[in-house]
């Protein structure tokens, strides 16, 4: 576990002004952008831990993720073109016949903030697009979201298609969203049910061997 820093603590405490100012100050002092980004990721870990312990709620996850994006924006510009260490890759989408994107978007933001590369396929994604993205990006993880029970069958079909393409044993499939529960996971044939976006991050880290 990396050591807590002033910047990580500021983000963990949702002190937006302090987090933004510290990034500027550290850049001005000549610190490596990648090292500063890692401090911010540590701060997001703190936000996630506080969410898991019940101290923080979804609003704090959203705010924390937004502070992360805002504070890391100048770093991302400097880091463009540089190889960044990533923990793994997640192909993510809201399944066919469902256009809800909020849950999926918060998962994408939190995963990225935790060092996981996200290939976001968007909403109303059919099985063929999932299969194609798995072939192309070779992720360790696939995430599917839905807010409608009518999309359960789309999840099931997608997972069957992944299996038919011979890719099922190459990925761990996470599912989540409003009506999804453990019964749904079993019905659609996924590996993990994630009750919250943060659950998804924890599951992903476990799968990647860093949780």
């Amino acid at each position, binding site marked *: 576990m990396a050591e807590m820093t002033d910047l990580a603590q500021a983000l963990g405490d949702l002190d937006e002004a302090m987090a933004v100012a510290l990034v500027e100050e550290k850049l001005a002092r000549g610190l490596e952008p990648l090292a500063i980004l890692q401090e911010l990721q540590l701060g997001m870990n703190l936000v996630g831990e506080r969410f898991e312990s019940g101290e923080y709620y*979804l609003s704090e996850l959203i705010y924390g993720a937004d502070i992360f994006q805002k504070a890391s924006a100048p770093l991302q510009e400097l880091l463009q073109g540089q190889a960044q260490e990533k923990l793994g890759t997640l192909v993510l989408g809201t399944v066919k016949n469902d256009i809800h994107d*909020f849950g999926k978007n918060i998962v994408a933001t939190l995963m990225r903030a935790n060092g996981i590369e996200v290939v976001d396929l968007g909403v109303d994604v059919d099985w063929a697009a999932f299969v194609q993205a798995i072939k192309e990006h070779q992720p360790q993880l696939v995430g599917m979201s839905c807010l409608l029970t009518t999309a359960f069958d789309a999840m099931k079909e997608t997972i069957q298609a992944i299996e038919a393409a011979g890719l099922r044993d190459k990925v761990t499939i996470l599912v989540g969203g409003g009506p999804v529960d453990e019964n749904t996971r079993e019905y659609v044939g996924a590996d993990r049910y994630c009750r919250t976006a943060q659950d998804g991050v924890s599951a992903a880290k476990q799968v990647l061997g860093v949780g």
Partner: protein
Amino acid sequence: MQEQATFTPPPLYAERMQRLQTAIACGTPDRVPVSLVMDSFAARTMGLKLSEFVSSVDVAAQAMLGTLEKLGDVDSIQFATYAPDVLGLLWLAPVKVPGRELPDDTQWQLDEQVRMQQEDYGRILDMGWSAWLGEYIGKYLGAAVTAAQALAEANPRWVPEYVKRGYVVLSPLTVDHPFEHLCGARTVKEFTLDLYRIPEKVQAVMDLIMVEKREQARQLVRSFGPMGYWVGSWRTAPEFLAPKLWDRFVWPYMKELVEIVVEEGGTPILHYDANWDREIPRLKELPPRRCVLALDSKTDIFRAKKILAGHMCILGDVPPGLLTVGTVDEVRAYCRRLLSEVGPDGYIMAMGCAIPSDAKFENVKAMVDSVHEV
């Protein structure tokens, strides 16, 4: 609650109304009553495409009534008819509807985008809520207004049809929280960020909306009388918000709207989706034995009962996912637990939120029949 028709309702209606009234007052009726929310499930049951179901409020009402008849001994339905476009007036976002924007048999969905900009808070404060809303509706929500008018016209025709057949229409009208409007127009993400970054402005707008809301709520209940009124919660659920935000932006407004409905003789139906565990004890601040807490399966209903026993009737919460992918035996087992641990006093058997369109008919029937099996 009082009877809803000017003609003499059949004895079956009186019996069911008595059962519901006893449960709402936290008493123990002759058996636990059943109250359903259904829309697209009725379409499936009656063999209609969703595009047909949404084509007219009369088609929808006919399908809903027909579904009740097929299900057997159901005491009550919460809405007499349905038009999904009307959701747009709650969340200030247009609805994509089958046969119009979506394929014929696809579930309708809210098309949530950032339509209200941050500078609109200032405009609302300058123009007033009604003027701003009128402008917004003109731009985005024409179909929602048409749907609301159609429902207002259909309810007086259809409620008596249900009553004649002995069904109580529990809560055909709604009283909406200002948070839901703003959150829908801004989107969950942007509105959440507003709560952190410009809290004073958001609160000023919510206070301004409430000036109109409290008067509208009072007039609504005075006009339609002592029936049930949905005072719902979707994005205002405690699971989504830090306590300091919830205490400031949700609860004071919610409590006031509930109290107004009660003061005017209505029965607030607290249709609370998502997880309310954290704030269940706060519900003891609401008037005793006058409200119905309707849970969607995300809140621990068994714990809620322990906290609210004798204070508030509870409705719910057979999980939508269980009705869809579960077996009859699983549904029966869950219902038995509800009947023994949440009932028999102060309890109404129901689905969590609404019956999903792809629920298995036999599972819904098992839920309805469960109240006779104890």
